[in-house]
């Protein structure tokens, strides 16, 4: 393992600098020599052994006796047996309850202490069943216990340092897990000794060389700035490759960012944005675009009908009459029309907008000349939802209105879209078919990642469309299929993902 000395924790640094190869390193040493707390010793040992800088050389188990709070109190006022013995010496015989009351002891304590005195022949009960002292001095065991308590005040007692008698004496006063009333608590302990490894010694030398002391500043505090104490030392560097904690920022949606970018691009090319309602009628969705009412794309299996209201109240005049006549016999558009009887009820039927071109149609009567318009419109199709079909999706569409716009302008525009919006390397135009444009052109592009694909459809609106809606100038109409580029941009391959409700997936999503 390659150790970056700058990344070592101060507890590790100070330890390493303090010890030498061959020395026994114990927590006792660190506590006394470096002022570490036991917890800090353990941290330093575990980190350094994990890094291979220290190795464990020995491990020793032993038992300690440590004074409890009760034990420390007894060191001052004496053990119950001692106190009972002294009391009886001074005040003569007394009943056990009287003794308890006089000495402030529990009956049970008095009972067991008196028991130990009688066992050692230092006390007995008289004829009236009162306790009386019988010897001159305390029993030897109590004396021993007193001495042990005194010694334990300085430091806990190691069992292996006691004599047989002492062990016996102390065991009477100790309980494992230190019951509240007992004098001593028994602690099973383990001392581990470590030594510096060769690698540890190398790192130590590196630390000395780099002059890293472990005394560097950690947090910069307001106090350090106010007092200027920061000037008296250097700052501990942070490990550059340490794991980073996660933030959850407020963020825009990556797909929305892409659509916004497309909008900005189109605005920069001189296009004005338009929009419209989601519920439209057959008139604007199809009739105004000179799609015959019997056209296969207008079938019940292609568009969504509204349940209620089934029909719009009315269709705007004079557009309705003009469009109806154009369908029937061409009206004044120079066309012979479709030659069928226009259905005035069907035209009012309401549907979910099925193509963005509705927006272009509704824009025509109010379009400026010259004018350029675009919209990114949510559309709805009667399609089985799968990776390439959504129940609703965005279409990007627009028109260019101008006295002299023509096919070559359309090609120029498509080339502009291909390079500006799609980053195309090559552009190819092929004749296409749309019911509302003639001529119609499809633009295929060679994308650096996606290869050749159809970027969009376009054409010059048929005069049946424009003239019926009061425009006597040519109108270029175009639509761009930007979904494929959006998916590529977002690193996705399923259209349904664009509208996912999954928060985590949207949080992590990013554009290219």
């Amino acid at each position, binding site marked *: 393992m390659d150790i970056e000395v700058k990344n070592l924790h101060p507890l590790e640094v100070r330890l390493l600098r303090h010890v030498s190869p061959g020395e026994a390193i114990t927590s006792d040493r660190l506590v006394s020599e470096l002022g570490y707390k036991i917890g800090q010793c353990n941290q330093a040992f575990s980190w350094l052994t994990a890094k291979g800088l220290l190795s464990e050389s020995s491990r020793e188990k032993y038992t300690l006796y440590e004074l409890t709070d009760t034990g420390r109190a007894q060191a001052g006022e004496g053990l119950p047996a001692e106190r009972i013995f002294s009391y009886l010496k001074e005040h003569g015989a007394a009943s056990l309850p009287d003794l308890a009351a006089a000495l402030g002891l529990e009956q049970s304590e008095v009972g067991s202490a008196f028991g130990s005195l009688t066992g050692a022949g230092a006390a007995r009960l008289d004829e009236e069943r009162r306790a009386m002292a019988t010897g001159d001095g305390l029993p030897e065991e109590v004396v021993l216990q007193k001495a042990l308590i005194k010694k334990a005040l300085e430091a806990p007692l190691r069992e292996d340092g006691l004599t047989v008698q002492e062990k016996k004496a102390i065991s009477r006063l100790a309980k494992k897990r230190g019951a509240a009333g007992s004098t001593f608590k028994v602690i099973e302990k383990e001392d581990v000794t470590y030594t510096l490894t060769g690698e540890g010694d190398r790192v130590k030398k590196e630390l000395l060389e780099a002059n890293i002391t472990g005394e560097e500043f950690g947090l910069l505090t307001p106090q350090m700035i106010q007092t200027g104490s920061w000037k008296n030392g250097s700052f501990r560097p942070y490990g550059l490759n340490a794991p980073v904690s996660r933030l959850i920022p407020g963020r*825009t949606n990556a797909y929305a960012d892409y659509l916004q970018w497309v909008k900005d691009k189109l*605005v920069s090319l001189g296009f004005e944005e338009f929009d419209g309602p989601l519920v439209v009628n057959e008139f604007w969705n199809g009739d105004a675009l000179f799609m015959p009412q019997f056209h296969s794309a207008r079938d019940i299996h292609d568009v969504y009908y509204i349940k209620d*209201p089934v029909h719009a109240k009315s269709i705007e005049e004079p557009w309705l009459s003009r469009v109806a006549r154009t369908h029937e016999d061409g009206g004044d558009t120079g066309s012979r029309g479709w030659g069928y009887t226009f259905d005035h009820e069907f035209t009012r039927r309401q549907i979910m907008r099925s193509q963005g071109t509705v927006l272009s149609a509704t824009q025509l009567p109010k379009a400026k000349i010259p004018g350029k318009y675009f919209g990114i419109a949510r559309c709805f199709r009667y399609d089985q939802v799968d990776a390439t079909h959504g129940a609703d999706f965005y279409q990007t569409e627009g028109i260019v209105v101008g006295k002299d716009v023509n096919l070559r*302008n359309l090609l120029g525009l498509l080339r502009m879209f291909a390079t500006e919006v799609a980053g195309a390397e090559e552009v190819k135009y092929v004749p296409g078919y749309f*019911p509302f444009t003639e001529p119609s052109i499809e633009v295929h592009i060679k994308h650096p990642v996606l290869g050749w694909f159809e970027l969009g459809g376009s054409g010059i609106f048929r005069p049946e469309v424009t003239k019926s809606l009061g425009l006597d100038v040519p109108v270029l109409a175009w639509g761009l299929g930007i979904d494929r580029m959006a998916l590529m941009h977002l690193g996705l391959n399923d259209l349904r993902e664009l509208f996912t409700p999954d928060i*985590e997936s949207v949080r992590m999503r990013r554009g290219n």
Partner: protein
Amino acid sequence: MPKIEVPEKLFFELCGRTYTDDEMNDIFPVAKAELDGHGDGTVKIELNDTNRPDLWSVAGVARALRTYESGKIPSYDFFSSRDVTRDCGNRHHYNEESCLGVRDFSISFAAEGCIVTEELLVNLIQSQEKLCQNFGRKRKTIAIGIFRSDLITYPIHYIGADPDKTAFVPLGMTEKLTLREILEKHPKGREYGHIIADKPRYPYLFDDKGETLSFSPIINSAHAGAVEVGDRNLFVDISGPIIDDILLAANILACDMADMGFRILPVRVHLAKDTKYGREITVPYYFQEETQCSLDFVEKELGERLDAQECRAALQRMGVSSDVEDGVITIRCPEYRNDFLHAVDIVEDIMIGHGLARFEPVLPADFTKGQLLPSEEYARKVKTLMVGLGFQEMMYNYLGSRREYVDNMHISDEKVVFIANPMSENYEVVRPSILPSLLESESVSGHAVYPHRIFELGKVCYKDENDNSGTVTRNNLGFLAADNQMTFNDASSYVNTLLYFLRIDYRLESVEDDGRFIPGRAAKVVADGKVIGVYGEVHPQVLESWGCSMPAVMAEFDLDLMH
């Protein structure tokens, strides 16, 4: 878009040459066709022009390519016209008045001199199907029957027959059924019966001996209508209510069959009513009108001056012969086409015939000002603020289920817009609010680290009888925040901060009877006397319906009322 599958061998034979896939990819666009696949001796072709039914057959595509490459217009000598009437021999076909109002016209022609092979039969049936389904609106306006003409005795009779007293053995069955029984029992009767079911009489075609040909547009007879491999002589009947459409269908089939080696034999059809072509028509009949277009118009449309010769050559490659006089092009539409509605249709053929690649792209010269909608600019402002408040922007579908948009929200469906023909109940309702979308997110995102703070700027749609459509579409903001502790006060802070920076002075009113919020912990936001939004703590009944277990607050604003 019609798709056809054609045998490679037959296709290349008809083209007069073979093509590699790359070559097909290059040449197909002149017929607005795309190569959809090629393998196992079959070429799959997608045809994009719904107004060019002549291209929906192996012969049709081959003809277009052959003509384009050779510049030679195919000539067919069997067409009658206003000026020419071809000899029909004894072949007469009478429409009787009883067919009027039922299915007005039935016309026919005969063909001979070619042995029907398996391959030919399959392709003939494919052309017939495409014409009837796509061009003939699922047989409503065009139905085609092909018969063994050896079994037929002229003249042919077409009548409106009594559905209960007329019976024959339909193709695919062995027992005699009345016309009405065929509608009920025959699969084709069930599929297409609706076209004529409510008529008092049904269309019926039979020969002079009384042998049934067909119950058009439903089914042929099992006798004369069962064309088989090895047959040589055929009779083709086309019926429908629109004379131009059935004449065109007859012309297309006749040209296709002629291209495949048949000799076409005209039939004199005696119609039951007058048409613009008279009451007697010898079929196949050239009915198309001349169309004109000036050279100036071509220049205006294409942005480039082509001279008369260039225009004529271009049209010729598209199979269109033309004359140019005094700067005006007059075209003669090919017999198998009828798609020249306007001068622009001529321009497009010139464009394709001349070669699209020969037109140099040039940008429009007009200066125009680019501009976002005010609603878009406002939405962006709101978006910036919401992001600053720590919210994640979401985007959702606008169609959903009744359960999501109504039931789970504990609201009434009074203002909700329903789809009349939903594909599934999952996409049956147009969303009336952004809030259910946000709750759906919450319901599927329990695994995402909390707190959740999400918003959407999007459209909603609901009923409004003041509008012409009875509905309105609005641009809304919806947001939702969810965490272990999330209270009305948190929501108030978000709303207050947002509206402060949007410079909107508002007051709050209490919300009554809104199942979406905890009573007493929701508010209507009123500005300029209008309710611009609502917010509050999500009612646990709503959270429960969505399967959410984290407390949440949510808000919705009508942005169109705010700027």
